[in-house]
Every structure is written in C-alpha cells, then in structure tokens.
C-alpha cells in the first residue's frame, strides 16, 4: 500500500537546499497561492506564521513572519521548504506538505495523501516569491 501511495506523488530532485525544477508543467499562480496560504483548512500556514494578510485577524507566531520570504529564498529553496521542511531543519514543527511516508497514526481521511497537491505547492511557491518586503 505504501508503495502504491508513493507513486501518487510526483518525483522531485533535491539539489543542495532546493528543488530547482517545478513539480508540474503549469506555472504557479500567485493569486491562488495566496488563497491557499490564507486558508486555515487548506494551507494551514497562518496557524503558525504571520504574513501580509490584513484581512485575516487570527495569525500565528510559532514561526517566522512570511514577509520577506521571497527575498530570503529563491524559488527552488522555497519549494523544498514547503515540500519537506524537515530536510532543512530536522526537528522542525513545520509539516511536510508533499510527503506521505514516515508518519504515525494518520487519520483515515488523510492517509496516503499529501497536505497539498503538486499544483497547490507551485501556487504557494509563486505567491511566496512575491513577498519581497521585510516585516
């Protein structure tokens, strides 16, 4: 079953601390990415992070402010940070958004599925690249 689920994910290649190549053929859409990041049920990002979302009253402070992320990291670095942050910071609390193995006791509804799809990752990465202004 694990092997079958594995196949559901697109292969990607890590080079240093980045995934330089996009996961999909369709270019990421920053507008769609913003909506994913802001949505507490989809991206979940604002549970932990704060960012330039004046309309969102409830944001987290368990993690760095997202503002300026697009200046601190290039596209490929951002992609790896969303796909599997634990490859950068081993004990990070940031979930691996595009990983399905090595987890314990996943609820049935989420088993064998990544948190975000490949296209959603591309959208989020496209959005994060627009965040050039530091907090």
């Amino acid at each position: 079953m694990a092997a079958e689920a594995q196949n559901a994910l697109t292969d990607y290649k890590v080079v240093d601390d980045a995934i330089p190549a996009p996961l999909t053929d369709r270019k990421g859409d920053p507008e769609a990415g913003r909506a994913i990041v802001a949505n507490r049920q989809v991206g979940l990002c604002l549970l932990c992070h704060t960012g330039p979302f004046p309309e969102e009253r409830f944001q987290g402070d368990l993690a760095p402010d997202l503002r300026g992320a697009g200046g601190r990291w290039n596209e490929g670095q951002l992609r790896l940070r969303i796909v599997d942050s634990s490859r950068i910071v081993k004990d990070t609390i940031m979930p691996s958004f595009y990983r399905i193995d090595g987890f314990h006791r996943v609820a049935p509804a989420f088993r064998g599925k990544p948190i975000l799809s490949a296209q959603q990752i591309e959208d989020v990465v496209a959005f994060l690249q627009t965040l050039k202004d530091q907090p």
Partner: protein
Amino acid sequence: MTRSIARGLCAAAAVALILSCPIRSGDAGNIPLDQRRSSYELMSPPTRAMQDDDTANPGTLWVLDGEALWQRESGAAGQACAGCHGDAAQSMKGVAARYPAFDASSGRPIDLEQRIVDCRVERQRAPAPARESKELLALTAFVARQSRGMAIEDVAGKDERLRPFLESGRAAFEQRQGQLNLSCANCHDDNWGRSLAGNAVPQGHPTGYPIYRLEWQGMGSLQRRLRNCMIGMRAETYAYGSPEYVDLQLYLAWRARGMPVEAPGVRP
C-alpha cells in the same frame, strides 16, 4: 538564527537570565515545576470570573444534576451512590485529585469516569452510562467538584504499578503523529504561550475537567479534549475509554502534580 541555536543560547544564559529568555525548556521535555500555568491564567478576566463564580459557571448545572443522581437509588441493586459513600463532601474529597488510579481488577489505570461506570454496573447493577452522556458528565463533575482547590497528587510517582503506564503515556505525548506530524509536546512543552492562529497555546494541564467549553456550548471530558487535539493534528482518534487515552491522562496528571483541581473549569 534557527530555533535550536536559540535554545542552546538560552540554556547557556539560563542561570543569569531566566526571566528574559523567550524560549521554553522544550528540549528537556518537561516544563519546570515553578513555570507551570493552568490555562485559567491565559483566559480573559470575564471567562475567569465565570469559572470562579458558581452561579455564573455553566458547569454548576452538571454538578447539581450530579448531586441529584448521587442521591437517587438506581439499578437492580436499588442502591444510590450515597447509599455506599454517604456525604460526598466527605467521602469524595480529594478523589478526583488522585485519578487516573490503579484498578486491581483490570490490572491497569482507569480514569474517574471509568470508576463511576464500574460502580454503576457492578454495585448498582445499572446500565453503563455512555462516555460523554449527560449522566456520566454530571456525576463526574459532581465528584470532581469535591476536590476543587486540592493539589493533584503524584499518583504515578507513588504507585509502582502505574510506572509502565506513565511511561507509555509519556511516549504517546512525545510521539509525532497525524498528517501534520506534530507531537503533543511540540505544542504544549515547546510552544505554550504562543499564538496558534490567535489561540493561546496552553501548557495542556488536565486541572479543570470535566470542563464547560464555550466553543462546545456544553460540557466535555478530558478525553473529548484529547480527541480534539488529535483531530487537529489529523491523527487517528481512539475510541472513548481506550487505554491509550488513560495512559495519556496519567501522564498529564503527573505533569500537573501539585497544581490545584479547578473542576468544573470553564474554557473558551
């Protein structure tokens, strides 16, 4: 600077700078005893006032129902709780402060709810009340209320037989789980006091249970709370009454040893 580096710096500076250090002692896995805080302290003054005043605390309704049930004869044995235990203000004082406790017949710890279910079934020969039923929450709230203000006992520290269950509870607390791959400790040891999308992350002490939660608009047990956290982690939940929950409850009680019982607590 990564957080782990920050933590190392904090540890080095801890002796000199205890108060100014923003990073908690998450690496050690445990919150120092003198830094423990009930969620009560994170609540707004109106919510605290609601908990403190019996006439404003919605949990009082369950306590009063529980008191009526305590007096009422029921089951094939025709016995009331009071028939065996008398005045709860005497006989139940301190009981909630030492649960989960070792149960010889099952050879493992049981929580207060299970003790009440067992009495209902074995002594009163009445049907087992369901977990989270009004009846069981009312009786539990009434019994727990008799321990309000008393310090949670270090039951697992004193009773050797509980040790393996304590360790299994600790392991469950520290195990990452669910699609989000978080452990209880990630939030409650390492990030308490921070804001999770606007909610203050509490240390996760079991002092107030059963609680009246404003978000539920109702009463709920500690297991209901644990279930909520597991759903948030996108982890599999256990069936109510499962030994896995009780082991976690035992670890939470040990972690909160010495803290006062607040039942029935009010939580946002």
